[in-house]
């Protein structure tokens, strides 16, 4: 393997029904920074159907070049068709680094392609930089439930691949005046090599929880005591125009669906304001929210670890503090 042949940093922009997942745009932010650092091109890879809008956005968010694979079969994700297209592109263009959003589909295609190329893939990264000593990509990721951080290199094979958690990086400012080269590649896998088939898609609109995009999140944990007390959390979130999150304990207790869970086995979020109510701050929860701009903790235990990461904290009974807070916020809004 001749390393000189491998250059440029790729961001895989996952699409579904012609729309890109947010994490793809988020990854163009560190992608731009790293490509500038290594003096390489930032290339966005779009596999999908009706992708004009996605291609335009990729350029506006900083891509120097966009590789597009369009086709009817790419309307919905399929492991075989998508991994074939990505593998073909990588084999032809030889990128040095490939970033993939760690969504369910990203974590489906990443290992499939990395294995086919017999290269390394680092899962679920939260930090990306160039290793000063070796010039390799350095992937930082939490392990052991967030108790330990690991810095991982892929020094002997190319490309260097990694999946990156949604919500860790922020989308940049769009610059609609940017231009970039757009290359269309015609890649289709023979139908008889497609081993899985989508039978039905069920969208649970009522349960749509867009935590990754919320600017304010109010989360509840074990301290709520029972399911119905999530009304306190919902009400505070509503007054603030925010979304409702939760700790794993509250999900495990069956008080709220998994889609709301923030933490190592839930979602990673980085809102402007994160309010943790009745959440002790287990390390696996902190792994999912410590990147928030401002963290506010409400907890009756003054020793709770959540206070170690909080910018502001109130030690007190949340059933008294939350209603008082709602009143104060209403007063502030009306003033």
């Amino acid at each position, binding site marked *: 393997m001749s390393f000189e042949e491998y250059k440029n940093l790729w961001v895989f922009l996952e699409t579904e029904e012609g729309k890109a997942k947010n994490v793809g745009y988020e990854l163009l932010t560190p992608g731009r920074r790293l490509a500038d650092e290594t003096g390489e091109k930032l290339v966005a890879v779009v596999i999908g159907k009706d992708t004009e809008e996605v291609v335009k956005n990729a350029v506006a968010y900083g891509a120097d070049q966009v590789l597009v694979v369009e086709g009817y079969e790419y309307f919905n994700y399929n492991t075989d068709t998508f991994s074939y297209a990505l593998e073909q592109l990588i084999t032809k263009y030889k990128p040095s680094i490939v970033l993939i959003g760690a*969504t369910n589909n990203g974590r489906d295609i990443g290992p499939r392609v990395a294995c086919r190329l017999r290269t390394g893939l680092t*899962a679920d990264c939260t930090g990306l930089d160039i290793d000063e000593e070796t010039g390799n990509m350095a992937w930082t990721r939490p392990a052991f439930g967030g108790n*330990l951080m690991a810095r991982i290199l892929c020094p002997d094979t190319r490309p260097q691949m990694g999946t990156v958690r949604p919500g860790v990086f922020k989308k940049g400012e769009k610059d609609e005046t940017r231009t970039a080269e757009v290359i269309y590649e015609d890649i289709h896998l023979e139908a008889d090599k497609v*081993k899985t088939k989508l039978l039905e898609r069920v969208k649970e609109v009522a349960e749509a929880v867009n935590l990754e995009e919320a600017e304010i999140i109010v989360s509840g944990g074990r301290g709520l005591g029972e399911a119905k007390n999530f009304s306190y959390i919902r009400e505070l979130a509503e007054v603030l125009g925010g979304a409702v999150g939760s700790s794993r304990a509250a999900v495990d207790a069956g008080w709220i669906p998994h889609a709301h869970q923030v933490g190592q086995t839930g979602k990673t979020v980085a809102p402007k304001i994160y309010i943790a109510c009745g959440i002790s701050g287990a390390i696996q929860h902190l792994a999912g929210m410590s990147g928030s701009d401002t963290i506010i903790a409400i907890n009756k235990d003054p020793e709770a670890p959540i206070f170690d990461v909080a910018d*502001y904290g109130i030690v007190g009974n949340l059933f008294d503090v939350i*209603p008082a*807070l709602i009143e*104060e916020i209403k007063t502030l809004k009306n003033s």
Partner: protein
Amino acid sequence: MNILVCVKQVPDTTEIKIDPVTNTLIRAGVPSIVNPFDGYALEVAVRLKEAVGGKVTVMSMGPEQAKAALKECLSVGADQAYLISDRAFGGSDTLATSYVLSVALKAVEEKERAPFDLIFCGKQAIDGDTGQVGPELAEHLGYAQITYASDVIMEDGMLQVKRESDEGYDYITAELPAVITIVKTPFEPRYATIRSKMAANKAVIPTLTAADMPIDTSRCGLKGSPTKVKKTYTPVREKHGIKIEGKPADEAARELVGLLSDAKIM
């Protein structure tokens, strides 16, 4: 239906402690458990077997102690177990691990003279949290893969898998053989009974080493692993925030909103 479930023995990460000096796990006193997602995978496999008939085999790559995890699987519905163990496999990353498992799977098929129709894995192990071994195993074998499944049924001879998506879930079918990775299921895995535990304890679990299968050891262990851990460290999370303590709720709330408004956060 001949089913294989791949399981991993992991430290219970909810009880883990890190040595602050060496940044390594303090293993002493930390219980070893069957990776919970593998437990769900086993339950799905056993339910499927109960519905359509067949056999469930569990396989684990790990040290001799991992037999304890395999015995636990035997006590909750698995019919037989294999341990895949060799010094040459130690230090494997996901690519190397999945390679070993793919070769071991073929070796087990040969021994049993029966190919597997379905291979189940947990969606990820709670120690490494990568979720990559399942799909990489599928790739090594050239099989269909469905990840993040919460239920698997056979209806009129057709496989139907419920897969979590960002907006809800998808129903997907696949050609067999297929590799399916399982998330937390809506149902709890069954418990062992005293009788099933005693039977599992008596079970003899065969071990397959590198010598028992046609394996390229240069693709195993540390040297067969393209990813290298450069260093590990404990995350630093000390902030010196403002803590409002010992005040009535309304006063504390007023003070907090005042601070947030002064700092232009709210």
